[in-house]
């Protein structure tokens, strides 16, 4: 069997064709770098994505602090992770880089703050 992918690792967006039998990858073509090969192999067995969102901040100069995952999580867990993110309320000041949830839902990825919000 063959399957075509658009690689999302970097902006090159390589169009990669994978030839495979079951879980056995026979050939990978069209990728400009090794990361493309790793991406499609992952995509065939266990597609993963990182996500970004925001959490509410009380008493800050901004009402929101942006957050993101440090590593991709299984695609089907994205909305479960969003539910966890929505539960979080922060009190200013908030510092970029702060880990809000280590190993979120046991998925091997941390949720970190990406924007510093000073107290009002």
């Amino acid at each position, binding site marked *: 069997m063959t399957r075509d992918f658009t690689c999302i690792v970097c902006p090159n967006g390589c169009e990669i064709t994978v030839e495979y039998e079951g879980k056995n990858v026979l050939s990978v073509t069209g990728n400009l770098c090794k990361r493309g090969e790793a991406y499609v192999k992952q995509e065939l067995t266990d597609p993963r994505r990182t996500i970004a969102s*925001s959490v509410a901040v009380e008493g800050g100069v901004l009402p*929101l602090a942006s957050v*993101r995952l440090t590593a991709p999580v299984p695609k089907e867990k994205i909305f479960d992770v969003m539910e966890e993110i929505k539960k979080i309320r922060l009190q200013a000041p908030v510092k970029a880089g702060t880990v809000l949830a280590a190993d979120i839902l046991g998925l091997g990825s941390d949720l970190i703050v990406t924007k510093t919000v000073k107290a009002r």
Partner: protein
Amino acid sequence: MNIRNVDVLIVGGGPAGLAAAAELHRQGVTDILICEREKQPGGILRQCIHDGFGLTRFGESMSGPEYADRFIREVKEAGIPLITNASVTDITKDRLVTVVTPEGLLKVQARAVVLAMGCRERTRGALAIPGERPAGVYTAGVAQAYMNLYNRMPAKEAVILGSGDIGMIMARRLTLEGVKVKAVYEIMPYAAGLPRNVEQCLNDYGIPLYLSHTVTEIHGDHRLTAVTVSAVDEHLKPIPGTEEKIPCDTLILSVGLLPENELSLGAGVTLDPRTRGAEVSEYYETDVPGIFSAGNVLHVHDLVDFVSMEAEKLARSVTRYLADGLPACGIAVTCDRSVNHTVPMRLSGTEDVMLSLRVSRPGRDVTVRVTQGGREVAAKKMKKALPAEMIQLVLKAEKITGTEDLEVTVS
């Protein structure tokens, strides 16, 4: 009124202005003033909370605020003066700059001015979509600001017109926050944004992308209630009989970005009709001596990494300009209809140059060719070439001779 003197005044504290300031400082130019009209520096990156910035410039992937913070910290640590809430309202061709600040009017005489104002979004007005005038029609960047900066949810059921990157990123962002995004409609027969965004923002969430379709009517009294969409023919004209009414309370427009050059025009800078940015030399100098331009105000980029790197190159040119002046740039870069535009538009022919360009339409197995009087100066073979992607190639000085124009073609 007192006139303050500086070596370099930078208009805009977004990615281009910050990168230019940091690099100028590294090059030993320290008498700088950055004027930013918003409350905080960082420009549009402040609301771009998604991941994927920095892969080219820093070799790692981060969010927009984190990317901006790298430059903001460097500018602060270097002690470069940056005033916020400061709107530049006028620049003369002799580089006398008027700035409106909360403390009053400021007049600054600069030896060099860096234009780093970025771009803005095309609006409904620019498209002239017929119909009612209800609330609920936003550009993608405005919807992004509501959600990511002000904690306001702009939609329950959304339709997106235009497949620009910000529109696709907002399709995902809205979906993650529980909004039903019904579809993305694109008038052209191909996506306007990057393929990876079609994949990770639309396909991942089952959001359909309809090519060769556009919104032909807007319905609603106080609030948007529906849009009519139609298929378009090869001349982009709506095909009668294909109309479909889609109920929705929000229409998001992602239909292109325009460099914001009112100040440049006021200074007498000539704009290029294709980029709508300044016509610049390889040193990013406009046709007004001492006024330079880089980033999205010069031409709309696909990636912020390239904005930063272009502004850093500009900074090295400004450093040379202040020290010993710059070589004359008499060699014009021209292109045929296969190329949408190139930057720069003029070269000296004395040193290697990075040429940036965009193709007019998608192509497969194409070659970008730069020639001078029929001789090949540079060529780049590409498996695919998309209008969404900026293409760069290096022109070697030793291949450029005389003052004849260079021609760029894609075939």
